[in-house]
């Protein structure tokens, strides 16, 4: 996840200082991992070094660090390139779930793999219920709904995989242990 690009995106609307950027990030990307202040300042430092942002001034009043930053022309070009680049659709299958099933078959047996799949399914279902409740709550913002939809879609794909794998555990075991 590219925090740098999100910060550049937020700065496209005008200069902001670090605290403001953190708040805007967490508001625009609900359900993303909240940004730590340290991470905001470290990222701004790197962006400044690379010439993508520049200091735009100091606010006198209040807190310690009120330096505000502005996006540079080079920063805008960099952001534009990133926006135009298509993300490769998952080149490798790296799933903890998949690994656990295979290792369960290697280290134990089909029963162990099945137990895991059943318990994992229950956990996925309960998370999906939580997200569905959150997004259908009367006060949900569009951002909340879009964020929940993203997670729900991925959980749904996992759930489908958990179901079909459950049906194939016996066959997979033959293959893995042959």
């Amino acid at each position: 996840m590219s925090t740098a690009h999100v910060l550049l995106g937020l700065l496209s609307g005008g200069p902001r200082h670090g605290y403001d950027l953190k708040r805007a990030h967490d508001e625009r990307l609900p359900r993303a991992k909240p940004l730590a202040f340290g991470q905001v300042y470290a990222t701004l430092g790197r962006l400044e070094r690379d010439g993508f942002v520049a200091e735009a001034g100091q606010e006198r009043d209040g807190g310690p660090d009120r330096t505000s930053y502005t996006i540079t022309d080079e920063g805008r070009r960099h952001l534009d390139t990133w926006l135009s680049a298509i993300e490769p659709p998952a080149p490798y299958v790296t799933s903890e779930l998949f690994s656990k099933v295979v290792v369960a078959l290697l280290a134990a047996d089909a029963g162990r793999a099945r137990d895991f799949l059943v318990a994992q399914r229950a956990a996925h279902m309960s998370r999906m219920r939580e997200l569905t409740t959150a997004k259908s709550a009367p006060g949900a913002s569009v951002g909340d709904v879009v964020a929940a939809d993203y997670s729900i879609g991925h959980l749904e794909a996992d759930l489908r995989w958990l179901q079909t794998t459950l049906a194939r555990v016996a066959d997979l075991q033959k293959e893995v242990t042959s």
Partner: protein
Amino acid sequence: MSALLSGTGLVRGYGSTPALRGVDLAIDEGEIVAVTGPSGCGKSTLLHCLAGILRLDAGTVTYREQDIGLWSEAARSRLRRTDFGVLFQFGQLVPELTAVENVALPLLLAGTGRREARQGALGWLDRLGVADLAEQRPGAMSGGQQQRCATARALVTEPRVLFADEPTGALDVLTGEQVLGEIVGVARERGMAVVLVTHETSVAAYADREIALRDGVLDPTGLGLGVTR
């Protein structure tokens, strides 16, 4: 406190085909329960038995502490007009009636005046996003539009229990969300209980809990979902 609706030892077959082989369940007021499981596992049969539409071979269905299996056909049919709302897999609107007439029908049968029934029907068509189709007959509507009218018709009497069999099976994702949103909204606002038959996990996630069936019996692990043998 006893459940609003419960089934005990439910058994039902079709000729030599067993569809339900002893199912127990209980549903509280305001509770949304998803009934899931692979095709042919008995979901629709269970829903029809609970709604008193299908007769049982064995077992009892209890609604508000009354064994409705002992009731006459007329009494059960009255119960379906007053307390139950039923939404089938395929709309099942009356083809000769317009959308608003279809939705107003259950209110008229329950004795509501014409004008009031029409107003109520229009309100529900609006909530389901099909107010502009009020004067259309089902033949002139898409499958999804018919399904939304059927949802309006099932909710218009403010039932205490809604039985919904794949209510969003024919709908695109966003329209399905709107229909489920209305159903859940009514359940939360007025304590309507919902029996929601579905084979989709994203639909089952609207429920408070899930009852999975497999080959006509409960599957406590929930493994039945979407897996066919």
